[in-house]
């Protein structure tokens, strides 16, 4: 499963980042890494982007970026 498929209110655990280069680096620099528990908070009014909570802080990212975060639904 990938992060973009998780619905608001659901939680998941990050398994792997399948991005590369700039996107991968940015994800990691913003605190996205395997093993972390993620809660999807909400989608924007026009569905995209999505807001998630990880380890006590909040990130928003576009769905086409979240595709590159592989997760297990909890």
């Amino acid at each position, binding site marked *: 499963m990938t992060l973009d498929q998780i619905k608001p209110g659901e939680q998941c655990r990050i398994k792997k*980042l399948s*991005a*590369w280069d*700039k*996107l*991968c*680096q*940015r*994800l*990691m*620099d*913003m*605190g996205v*890494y*395997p093993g972390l528990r993620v809660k999807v*908070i*909400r*989608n*924007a*009014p*026009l*569905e*995209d*982007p999505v*807001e998630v909570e990880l*380890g*006590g*802080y*909040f*990130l*928003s*990212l*576009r769905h*086409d*970026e979240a*595709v*590159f975060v592989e997760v297990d639904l909890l």
Partner: protein
Amino acid sequence: MNTQKCLVALAGQPNCGKSTVFNALTGASQHVANYPGVTVEKMYGAYRKHGTRVNVVDLPGTYSLTSYSLEERVARDFILRDKPSVVVNVMDASNLKRHLYLTFQLIEMDVPVVLNLNMMDVAERRGIEIDVARLAEMLGVSVAPTAIKRGKGKKNLLNIINEVGLSEKGKNTFTIDYGVMEAFLEEIEKLLADRGEADYPLRWLAVKLMEADDEVEKIVQQSGHDAVIIAVKQKRRAFEDEFDELPEQHIAYARYKAADIIADESVFVKKKDTVTLSDRIDRVVCHKIVGPLVLVGVVYALYHLSIVEGYKLTNYTWPLLARLKSLTAAVMPDPAFVTEPMIRSLALWFVDSVNALLNYIPIFFILFALIAILEDTGYMPRMAFLLDRLFKRFGLHGQSTLPMVLGGVFVGGCAVPAVMSTKGIPDERARFATLLIIPMLNCLAKIPLYILMINIYFADHKGIAMMFMATITLLMALPVAKILSMTLLKGRETAPFIMEMPPYHLPTLRGVLGRAVERIWLFLKKIVTIVAAVAIVIFVLMQFPGLSGDSKAHYAEEAEKAKAVFNKKIKDNPYAEHVRRDNIMALILYVDRYKKARAGIKDKEKAKVVDARFIEENEIFFKVIKPKGDKDAKKINKALKKLISARKKILRQIKAEKINNSFLGKIGRSLEPVTQWAGFNWRVNVALLSSFAAKESSVATLGAIYQSDEEGATLEKRMSETEKNFTPLHALALLLVMALFPPCIATVLTIKIQTGSVKWMMFSMAYQMLLGIVVASIVFTGGRLLGLSGLQAMALFFGMALTFTIAMGFVNPRHEYQ
């Protein structure tokens, strides 16, 4: 005396209170500049401690120190090149684990690091306890806990900075354990050491090379270590094959693992975080339905407070500017009956042009302060969150929202602060697209011409016409943004959207006012000076070559005639003695001055004071102006009024002929072959050209061109009288060209500052002019061929623009990450 110097750099992730720390350290002695060659702002300041002058540089807030973003490169280069004596790593104590990620990278760069655990009060409130001594011991650096916003810990921080800054530079002892990668790193370090690399810390180079950092590869290549690069490439591949993980992923994960270990031993969370206040606010602010409503409210408040209320404030500041003008007029040589000394005209024109811009300062001040509040509270990322989807469709970015609002998405913005605020957009391509379309939006200065044209030519449909103007600019700007981002801007760097949604903060008065003042100052320094220079150029173009000898003689004759009539009328008047021929000009100037002095004074007592002053200056003149019961004085008064109006008429004719003859007039005429397709004659061309200095001047120039014999006729009337052939279709073309074409100099300069390139500045000017004239020509010529009325053409064009915009929204360029 101790004259030691010390350079301190503040580094930290965004939202850690770094600028508050910077303000607390440097106080009022702050300066802004740009880092060499780039448009990133460099904040620096200084303070004194025990006789040591400490220079402080506030590095851009960054999550990491890679080469992928400009800010990160700038921060990194500064640390490497300027070798600060101390790097103070400001951290959010309530979020220590994540902030350590940057700390590790600083330590790896082998610079003396001081940890500043800021926002300790927030951590405490959240039940987070930090073992500062243990943290310092594990990392091998000094740690200074503070709550700068509450004024706590500053002294200790200063002492530690001094101590570390003046001590002999010791090696950082802490290293991250990269586990299975250590062997790879060791080999690379050895390769570099063998080649005598000594400018940069070897381990840092090795880690960066394994991360495939472009800039570091360049550094190594420039030092002539091509062989190392090739070896590293092999190692990266070998690592990936062996461990099924990108080396940069392994590195980042190792850092987070190290952060985990350190946080486990030094951070104790006593109570589990419940729902925070920020999250509760976001439930409303980012709500599917309520969120957009809140956004509309915020935008409305922004408009209302700055544009509407700020405009009211200009009622108070305008008299000051008017006084500046009358002071200038007072020190310049007096005008004669029909001629004016060149130096006087120039000085007054100059003051007028600068005043036109200075008049906006109250509006800008409120605007800048409100933006600072939006920035400090943390609402900006929410704005981006709400609208990103919409803007993304047109090659823009969620963070284009604010610049577009400021530029006047509907009616009444200003392109200058709008272009300035594009700085926050991390995606270069979207940032350029945004700043290139901002001048197309409806800035405040375009409005007077809209109103003028709509009043004359769409008098029966004012509401519709104004609605059309308010929305059509956006409908043209969006597709243009899309087209630009798909063509010219295709090669510009993009950045992932991923954005932190920081907790909400209460802004501080100091932070908000400080930033507003600083931006106003920047505006004055950079913009006003150049606008003044351009004003002079346009003055020359409008004044020269001036009147021909024949005309001069003609007007002199007219003047003599008027004077003779006046003299004849007052011949037998007892006051005539005092108002003799030679004194006529003095009397006229006296009247002028009196009118100005009394202007706007409604209070009777104050009026009396002014009157007394003028009576004292010249009792007889005063009697002439205010004859009351005196019959003879009344007669002179009547004759004088006639004379003054005759003089005004001559002056108007001279002005019109001057513009007609001027270089600008010639340029306007030479453009007629092109602009005829849009329905513009030379007079309109001149008005458009003159709006370069400031758009308001287009109406002023039209006012000068369209003269009327009728005293006090409105410009509306004068224009419709002179341009008898003008139809609403002409007006529509002019409205569209006004919306798109005249790039104001202040905006153009801001674009140069924000893009850091003259080329982009020129491009922005050129494409706007071209677009303006093309759109106007299509509408005018097309409308005429189809036999449409102005209103029909308006409706048709609106429909076309709307369809085109929607269509462009669905054009999907190649997917970014596929």
